[in-house]
């Protein structure tokens, strides 16, 4: 019998043209997702049809597959209830258990056959035209089959089971949908959280699709292995499958046992009729007169009616118990997430701040939006679903009253969701002792506004409203609405689309809230994007009313007419005005964002850099002077994102030949007003504005020194969609000197350093991102600024009233004049040209460590860990003084900055630490204490090291710049918190290295050839240096290191010199081990 059922179901399903369409959609997804995964794996050795890409896609499944499963699976079992054929089918002489098994196998097989569309898509990738032939290798049939069976088929089995079991238990079609979506939500949460989690084991286990596991394992594979390796399976994989597949099989067993025709057919007789009412009421004998009534039909009455109906529709949605259950479950999840998952970017738990509570709207945002969109679709088609449309559509109310009231009701439902998140956040804050941190304004802005809050929900509901009117078809509305929504967010997430103005309802900067700077420029940008989408949403709502047809449904083509009176001429006029407004706002955004240079796509940026290299590489061979001194006068106007400045730069020709032209690379948005050469104006020989390069013709003889004065202004105009432009932020401005001052000569940092990008732009591949140690010219360049020697100088900075400036050097003077604050800093000694300026509204605490004056500048409310920072600074300076000589500065300032850039910055007399790197951490645990001390100590070690060593601009430079200070800082942590705390930090680095090395764009170098790539030096480098230090003994290590540093005494030094020296001090039995760490790539 099972085979008969199978045959019938398969034939019935695959006879439908829609099934073929589903299959083709999945073929498309197989190609589309592969392209996205290829963009993710940036290494140029990774093939477009590499096995790893396919494994990830098999595990993720993709939203099209999920939607199709939701549509198809439940119907296979439920259709007899839905179409009321159960009365016939269930009365046939068939075994109900075999019937259940037959239908289950049918659904599973249909899903597998359709899921094979992804497989087919992957096979077709090389022929799809998405890449050139060199990007493809042989099709990895074995790996694909392995991935398809292990991931897709097992996930499909699990989803089919959960859908069937939910139907058997709840006897409602909605239960089938929701159970599948609940699994998807759990997957989305796991996938989202895994990015920031220190330990992903738990997340890998709770992910029902094993996607997180697959991604973690594959990311860690070397580039070559990504093309050919079979997915490694370890205990976590088997445990995950045991939990999810094992659990599903148990669920299947339960459903199989429970299913019976008698029980299941109850869904018809008791659907919505849980308690049958006795209809045998006695007939009244009395004469009843129906009283007369007055009927009023007027515009005002329609408006009143609209409001009453909105309230009624809202009540009808929120009144059922299942709504309360769903909101309750969501509330619980928000609450738990706020308590358990509020990890910062780089650390563990953080203080219960409002900004971390409102983040829940993003991590679960996709699910909430999907839920609301489905709810909206259901509400818009409520009358059709309940089959009462023939009554309601014949009522004397205009279409807009009925439809718009449903839209408004959904807005109310969306408000409930937003308020639920707010309430859960507030409760979590109170429970975690953070009631003082409750920020009603931020809650309102985030949850009720358009940064993925209530207004964003409304925009998406408007889209569903439009689709409902246009299609007149419930399921099509769901598929198009939810499908577009996921297409939208996934396309931007994967970088397939970059310009937000093409992504309906998306606004920039929603994830970029800074405790220091709020949403900064995003506040302006997101406002305009929202206004643009709001005008389109108005059009959607009005057209939704216009296209909605009461009565029997019309064909799609017949609907496309404007000859109806469902919206009157005023309404049609508003549609026109809003459409004009929408396109006007599109142009406005293009002007403000694109034309004013605030945004360019990756492709455009790559093209620009490649063009620069192609056009100006020759300058590299032209002798150029170096900067030997700078006096800077800088006036900051944060409120208008503007800086005016005058830089007196001392340039020296260190070459043996004279120089006749000076090449200046200016930063973007810099407008040079004047260039003076020893006080005299000079003309510009030529200027390439597109490439931001200026040539100044002036003779400079060998060893001649000149003062060049640059008067300029930097001002951001318009707004941005992707770059926070933090160097001129409203509060917490943090500016690199290079953001305003020019680079001399050829600007090598602009070269593309990813081989894939280079090949795409017609450039040759590079073997290394840095010059080899043997390159004596580069060796004598300072790794921080190849065009500058160590500098002294004066810096005068003014800023707006209420803000304080922290700049390199000791503070000589500060004053207030009018509405501006003035600060004068002077460098204590010549230092690498690594200057940063910071301006913000700070609270300050001051103290002394021996003779060194210390100031900590922080956001007023961020006092949580100040004692820990004090202790860290004290311990670090003590360590330096005891172990390494003398701390080089008489003053040191620690300043809190927004998180937009790097975690830490070091500059003469100053340290900047991101707001998310400890200021708001919950430091009750030893791990967090150790991390805060480690990050602070690292910067102070850098102060010491950078003033002692001229780090040559060659391979291994970043081991000296990054890894060595970190390894020394670990010694400080060890002294304070013990070896166990150090082990925790090292483990984190090992994990990060393992996870991130897979994204090496070129070829991972051994540490002695490290060429400045993020994941390597600060992770593997630090671990290796610390291990070397342990092997030598920390004191011996410090002593030997000092010996080398003293020997070089500010002469250019490379890491290989230090390494070779330390290696000679190792016991013979450890040399190979250390050599393996530094000279090989595992």
């Amino acid at each position: 019998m099972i085979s008969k059922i199978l045959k019938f179901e398969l034939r019935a399903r695959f006879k439908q043209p829609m099934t073929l369409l589903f299959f083709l959609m999945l073929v498309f997804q197989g190609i589309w997702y592969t392209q996205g995964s290829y963009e993710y794996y940036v290494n140029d050795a990774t093939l477009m049809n590499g096995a790893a890409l396919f494994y990830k896609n098999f595990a993720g499944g993709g939203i099209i597959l999920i939607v199709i499963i939701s549509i198809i699976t439940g119907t296979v079992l439920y259709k007899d209830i839905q179409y009321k054929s159960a009365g016939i089918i269930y009365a046939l002489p068939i075994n109900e258990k075999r019937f259940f098994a037959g239908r289950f196998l049918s659904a599973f097989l249909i899903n597998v056959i359709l899921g094979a569309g992804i497989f087919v898509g992957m096979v077709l990738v090389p022929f799809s035209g998405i890449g050139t032939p060199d990007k493809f290798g042989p099709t990895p049939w074995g790996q694909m089959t392995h991935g398809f069976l292990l991931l897709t088929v097992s996930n499909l089995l699990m989803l089919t089971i959960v859908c069937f079991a939910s139907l058997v238990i709840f006897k409602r079609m909605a239960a089938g949908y929701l159970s599948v979506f609940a699994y998807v939500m759990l997957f989305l949460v796991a996938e989202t959280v895994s990015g920031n989690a220190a330990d992903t084991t738990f997340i890998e286990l709770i992910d029902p699709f094993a996607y997180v596991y697959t991604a973690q394992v594959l990311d860690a594979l070397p580039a070559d292995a990504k093309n050919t390796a079979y997915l490694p399976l370890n205990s976590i994989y088997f445990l995950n499958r045991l939990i999810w597949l094992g659990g599903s099989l148990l669920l299947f067993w339960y459903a199989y046992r429970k299913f019976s025709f008698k029980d299941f057919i109850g869904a018809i007789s008791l659907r919505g009729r849980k308690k049958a009412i006795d209809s045998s009421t006695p007939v009244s004998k009395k004469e009843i007169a129906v009283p007369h009534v007055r009927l009023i039909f007027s515009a005002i009455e329609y408006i009143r009616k609209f409001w009453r109906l909105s309230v009624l529709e809202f009540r009808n949605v929120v009144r059922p118990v299942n709504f309360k259950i769903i909101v309750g479950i969501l509330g619980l999840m928000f609450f738990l997430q706020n308590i358990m998952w509020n990890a910062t970017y780089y650390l563990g738990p953080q203080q219960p701040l409002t900004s971390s509570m409102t983040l829940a709207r993003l991590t679960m945002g996709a699910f909430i939006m999907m839920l609301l969109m489905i709810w909206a679709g259901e509400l818009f088609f409520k009358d059709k679903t309940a089959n009462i449309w023939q009554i309601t559509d014949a009522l004397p109310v205009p279409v807009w009253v009925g439809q718009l009231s449903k839209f408004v009701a959904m807005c109310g439902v969306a408000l409930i969701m937003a308020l639920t998140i707010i309430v859960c956040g507030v409760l979590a804050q109170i429970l975690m002792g953070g009631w003082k941190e409750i920020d009603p304004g931020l809650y309102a802005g985030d949850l009720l506004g358009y940064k993925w809050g209530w207004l964003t929900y409304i925009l998406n509901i408007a889209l569903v409203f439009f689709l409902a009117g246009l299609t007149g078809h419930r399921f099509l509305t769901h598929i198009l609405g939810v499908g577009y929504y996921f297409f939208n967010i996934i396309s931007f997430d994967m970088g397939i689309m970059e310009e937000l103005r093409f992504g309906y309802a998306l606004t920039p900067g929603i994830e970029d809230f800074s405790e220091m700077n709020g949403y900064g420029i995003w506040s302006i940008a997101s406002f305009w994007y929202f206004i643009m989408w709001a005008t389109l949403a108005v059009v959607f709502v009005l057209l939704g009313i216009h296209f909605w047809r009461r009565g029997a449904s019309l064909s799609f083509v017949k609907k496309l007419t404007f000859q109806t009176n469902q919206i009157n001429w005023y309404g049609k006029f508003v549609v026109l005005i809003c459409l004009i407004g929408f396109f006007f706002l599109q142009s406005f955004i293009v002007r403000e964002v694109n034309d004013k240079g605030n945004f360019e796509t990756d492709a455009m940026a790559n093209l620009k850099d490649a063009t620069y290299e192609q056009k100006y590489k020759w300058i590299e061979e032209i002798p150029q002077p170096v900067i030997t001194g700078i006096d800077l006068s800088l006036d900051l106007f944060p409120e208008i994102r503007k800086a005016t400045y005058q830089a007196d730069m001392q340039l020296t020709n260190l070459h043996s030949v004279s120089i006749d032209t000076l090449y200046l690379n200016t930063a973007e948005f810099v407008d040079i007003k004047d260039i003076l050469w020893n006080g005299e104006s000079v003309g510009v020989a030529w200027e390439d504005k597109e490439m931001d390069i200026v040539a100044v013709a002036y003779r400079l003889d060998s060893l001649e020194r000149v003062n060049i004065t640059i008067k300029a202004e930097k001002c951001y105009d318009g707004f941005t969609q992707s770059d926070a432009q933090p160097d001129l932020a409203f509060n917490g401005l943090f500016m690199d000197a290079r953001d305003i001052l020019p680079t001399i000569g050829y600007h090598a940092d602009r070269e593309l350093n990813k081989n894939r990008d280079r090949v795409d732009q017609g450039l040759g591949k590079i073997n290394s991102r840095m010059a080899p140690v043997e390159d004596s010219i580069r060796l004598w360049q300072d790794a921080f600024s190849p065009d500058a020697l160590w500098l002294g100088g004066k810096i005068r900075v003014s800023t707006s009233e209420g803000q304080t400036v922290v700049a390199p050097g000791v503070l000589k003077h500060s004053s207030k004049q009018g509405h501006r604050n003035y600060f004068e800093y002077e460098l204590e000694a010549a230092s690498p040209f690594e200057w940063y300026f910071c301006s913000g509204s700070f609270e300050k605490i001051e103290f002394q460590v021996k003779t060194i004056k210390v100031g900590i500048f922080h956001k007023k409310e961020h006092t949580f860990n100040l004692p820990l920072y004090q202790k860290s600074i004290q311990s670090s300076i003590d360590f330096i003084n005891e172990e390494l000589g003398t701390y080089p500065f008489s003053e040191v300032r620690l300043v809190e900055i927004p998180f937009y850039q790097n975690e830490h910055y070091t500059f003469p007399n100053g340290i900047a630490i991101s707001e998310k790197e400890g200021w708001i951490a919950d430091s009750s645990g030893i791990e967090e204490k150790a991390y805060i001390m480690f990050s602070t100590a690292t910067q102070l070690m850098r102060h010491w090291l950078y003033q002692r060593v001229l780090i040559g601009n060659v391979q291994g430079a970043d081991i000296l710049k990054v890894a060595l200070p970190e390894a020394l800082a670990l010694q400080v942590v060890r002294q304070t918190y013990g070896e166990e705390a150090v082990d925790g930090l090292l483990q984190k680095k090992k994990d990060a290295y393992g996870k991130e090395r897979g994204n090496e764009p070129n070829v991972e170098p051994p540490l002695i050839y490290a060429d400045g790539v993020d994941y390597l030096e600060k992770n593997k480098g630090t671990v290796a240096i610390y291990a070397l230090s342990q092997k030598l003994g920390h004191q011996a290590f410090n002593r030997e290191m000092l010996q080398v540093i003293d020997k070089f005494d500010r002469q250019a030094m490379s890491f290989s010199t230090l390494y070779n020296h330390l290696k000679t001090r190792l016991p013979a039995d450890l040399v190979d081990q250390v050599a393996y760490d530094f000279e090989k790539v595992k």
Partner: protein
Amino acid sequence: MNLTIENLNKTYSNGVQALKNVSLTINKGMFGLLGQNGAGKSTLMRTIATLQDPDSGTIRFDDIDVGRQPDKLREVLGYLPQEFGVYPTVTATELLMHIADMKGIVNASERKMQVEALLEKVNLWDVRNKKLGGYSGGMKQRFGIAQALLGEPKLIIVDEPTAGLDPMERNRFYNLLSEIGENTVVILSTHIVEDVSTLCSQMAIIGKGEVLLTGTPDDVEAALQGRLWEKPIEKHELVKYENQMNVISSRFHLGKLMITVIADDLPDGNFWSKAPTLEDAYFNVLSKKKIAVGA
């Protein structure tokens, strides 16, 4: 007060012509539209009720052009569709109050009084506060009748209204409709001849989208006066009689097959004269397709 339908045509996208040049004039009182399943009755009802656009033709109710002013018609319309659902989680009172509001009964107390009176009329008073999801088919049908009568409509369209009602409820419904039909136009679409013969002063028979016969039930019956003959036969003889005579219907009576034949003269001595009923006229029309009556 009358409803005029002229040359109404409707063809569905699958090619089925549901209405063929339908023209009717319906005056105040009860109008019965009789036809088999699939004859086009519901299409005609939905079209009059503004839920479907005809391909061509016009409908007027007094001075309302239904095609151009559907909103105006809805203000005076009470419609009970053949098949309808309800919101399962709301009570009868709640849904009737809501529909009354939508029908323009703005005054809350008037709305309440009319809803309560109708709940009593349709015998749902005792279960008025129960959720509609729990209602039986008959109760739901009574609810449908109540909603159609809200707002004192001038044009009432009831499509197969007695389906699912027990004999007692059907009687009550007849009383109710006849009471209302005194001052309004009521179109009763049905395939149950008894509904029409009991209630309607005017009627039409529709088949395959065409109006086959119009008139009053009495006229329709009278047209067969003296021409109907009845006779018990053996089952196997039916084909023979059908070939030889104009057999318009056959039925069992006391275990015998009784045929009804139409003929101007007595067909043979074993037949006896039969007093015509509306059912006979209905069968006659269906068998002959179209006969002009009462012209």
